């Protein structure tokens, strides 16, 4: 660590292991190190965001105000969402991409390793700034993660920090996305054509394009908020001829693709795990690719389903209603393909498989509630109620978050060379599955019965639903420590866990990442591997049929 690296003059460095000490992590440009950093960062943010959600759930345990003031409650809902979305789910997926994309396509690192280091190290600063606003005059932002004006313009001293934090997160995501695109399109092992890429690589490629397309639009939108507040512009200020609804249009032009940014990599993960434990190749590989691409395309033309109630013309409401429902078609293709992959497979139920099956089932519930919300006339009733909260938590927690957990269980033996504890993995799964449904299922009913979202108090008839929900939330939070300890034990060899796993840790797994040693050496695929036909045919079912 002490010797200064000349970027070009350490040609034999890659035969050594990593540097020692803290500087290893600060200066590292190694995709595996950065993947690890991203994942530790993401889980730290999940923890902080989780604590915020517990404040929310504790307050909602009973009607009336118990623990916190309404102002603080609103800060919690706003910060919880921002921390979970931009600090938890998105960096979590970037961490997995860092680890797995190079190993899956057979190259030695991402195309732009310095940029990769930089993209990661922006994040701690962004979130220190964002979370630091909790201690400022006027408190943290409290106008909702959607930052609608004019409300958000009333934020106190925290306002510019919110905007700059969003800018930094955006820069970090964009650098990560550019890196992923460039790597995938230029550095695949010989023989790996686009339609032979593992699905995780495919879905991340599409996700990266979405990020490049919409994160700058978000940056523009929050910049306009900033100039409206401090520099006298009137983009969204009615008094000066602007229009607050305009912000909603611009925000959701980013916002809807953003929700697919948070789910497409998850699709890739379960499309990798299910074939392994069903011991069959993925059913309908090509249709999975085309479905992902059409979802990405459609996600650009449905944004106004978040704004059905602003007073749109009938033609607009009809257009956005039908366009939204159209997304259910490619999504349905995917769900059917996962089920067909399991059909008549020789299934076993290791922990990653359990989380993936739960994903298929529970994500689909979230998709169905999405379809209900997509119907304009009924959305007038559901909008801004707990029904919406239930919908997006079903797609995000047992959806995106379960997929991240499944991915960590699935690949951690490859990363650390030590198997996780299967018994505690299963305990963790069942507790999570039960508690997450306890948390979010009753919110459907509370919402249908008329309980609004983002309120610290509610009418007494909603009490029972909220009691159940709060119990579920605390249970889910506590259960996650089983996971954390299980994974840390694999990392650090606690409880006498020994290395010594075969390369192909799961005998049904396919892909280049399973052809290197476990744990994966610090540098892999310095010489591009030949992507063998057998590995390819196992990934792509059509090729099997032809073989």
């Amino acid at each position, binding site marked *: 660590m002490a010797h200064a*690296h000349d*970027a*070009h003059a*350490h*040609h034999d*460095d*890659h035969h050594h292991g990593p540097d020692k000490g803290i500087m290893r992590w600060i200066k590292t*440009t*190694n*995709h595996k190190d950065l993947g690890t950093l991203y994942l530790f960062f993401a889980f730290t943010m999940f923890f902080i965001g989780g604590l915020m959600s517990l404040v929310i759930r504790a307050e909602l345990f009973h009607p009336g105000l118990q623990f916190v003031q309404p102002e603080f409650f609103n800060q919690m809902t706003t910060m919880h969402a921002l921390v979970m979305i931009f600090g938890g789910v998105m960096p979590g997926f970037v961490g997995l991409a860092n680890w797995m994309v*190079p190993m899956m396509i057979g*190259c*030695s*690192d*991402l*195309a*732009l*390793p*310095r*940029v990769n280091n930089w993209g990661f190290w922006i994040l701690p600063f962004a979130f220190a700034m964002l979370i630091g606003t909790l201690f400022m005059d006027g408190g943290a932002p409290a106008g909702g993660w959607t930052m609608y004006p004019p409300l958000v313009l009333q934020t106190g001293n925290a306002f510019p920090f919110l905007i700059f934090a969003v800018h930094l997160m955006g820069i970090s995501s*964009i650098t990560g996305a*550019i*890196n992923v*695109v*460039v*790597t995938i*399109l*230029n*550095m695949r092992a010989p023989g790996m054509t686009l339609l032979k890429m593992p699905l995780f690589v495919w879905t991340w490629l599409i996700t990266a394009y979405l990020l*490049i*397309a*919409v*994160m*700058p*639009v*978000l*940056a*523009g*939108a929050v910049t*306009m908020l900033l100039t409206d507040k401090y520099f*006298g512009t*009137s*983009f969204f200020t*009615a*008094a*000066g*001829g602007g*229009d607050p*609804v*305009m912000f909603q*249009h*611009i925000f959701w*032009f980013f916002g809807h693709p953003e929700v697919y940014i948070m789910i497409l990599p998850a699709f890739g993960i379960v499309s990798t795990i299910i074939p392994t434990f069903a011991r069959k190749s993925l059913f309908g590989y090509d249709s999975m690719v085309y479905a992902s691409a059409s979802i990405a395309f459609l996600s650009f033309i449905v944004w106004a389903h978040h704004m059905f109630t602003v*007073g*749109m*013309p009938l033609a*607009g409401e009809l257009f956005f209603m039908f366009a939204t429902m159209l997304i259910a078609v490619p999504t349905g293709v995917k769900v059917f393909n996962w089920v067909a992959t399991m059909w008549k497979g020789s299934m076993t139920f290791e922990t990653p498989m359990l989380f993936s099956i739960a994903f298929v089932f529970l994500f689909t519930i979230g998709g169905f509630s999405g379809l209900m919300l997509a119907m304009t006339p009924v959305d007038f009733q559901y909008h801004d109620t707990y029904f919406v909260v239930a919908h997006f938590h079903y797609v995000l927690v047992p959806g995106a978050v379960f997929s991240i957990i499944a991915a960590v269980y699935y690949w951690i033996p490859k990363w650390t060379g030590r198997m996780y504890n299967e018994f505690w993995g299963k305990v963790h799964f069942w507790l999570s599955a039960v508690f997450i449904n306890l948390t979010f299922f009753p919110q459907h009913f509370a919402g249908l019965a008329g309980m609004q979202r983002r309120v610290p108090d509610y009418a007494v008839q909603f009490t029972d639903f909220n009691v159940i929900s709060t119990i579920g939330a605390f249970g889910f939070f506590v259960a996650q420590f089983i996971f954390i300890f299980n994974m840390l034990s694999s990392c650090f060899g606690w409880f006498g866990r020994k290395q010594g796993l075969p390369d192909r840790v799961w005998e049904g797994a396919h892909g280049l990442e399973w052809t290197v040693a476990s744990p994966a050496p610090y*540098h892999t695929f*310095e010489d591009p591997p030949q992507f063998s036909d057998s590995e390819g045919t196992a990934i792509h079912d059509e090729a099997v049929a032809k073989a």
Partner: protein
Amino acid sequence: MSGREQQQPSVRRASNMHAVRLLFVTAAMFGFGFALVPMYNMLCDALGINGKIELKAADAAPVDVDPNRTVTVEFVTTVNGGRNWEFHPDQPSIEVHPGKLYTVTFFARNTEDHDLVAQAVPNIAPWEAAKHLKKTECFCFNQQPFKAGEAKDMPVVFMLDPELPPDVDRVTLSYTFFDVSDIAMKPN
């Protein structure tokens, strides 16, 4: 770094070019975010779908009055930001015949102890009516200076043109008063 050293120069050059191209896309999308503002405005103007009315006098040439059709026009007033200025219409609603000019008045008083400049922003519901409500005179065309404690009666002269869609029998004209002292007199 080592991974990068390992890359063939041709791959490396291609990657760098690719990254630069994507950076241009990023910059273009940042611009696109801002371009959405005029794009939406043009779309709303062209289709008249925003409930917004032009902030300048319409030339309401006299047209055939349709005495058989009566439409109720309601007036709603709001003061932005919870200020307690007095601001209300002198009549909550009136019955009008499309094609005829009417005059209504609004009352406003600055109850604060300092001078200020206010701007009223109109909006119309249902949105289909927006482009059929023609105003020849309105206090919303200009910023309104108020001395501390000053009160004003402010007229609006308007007509609904006969092309108003037949299923509309009730139109709401709302005004929100904003304190624009900080940005007063700047053309928007």
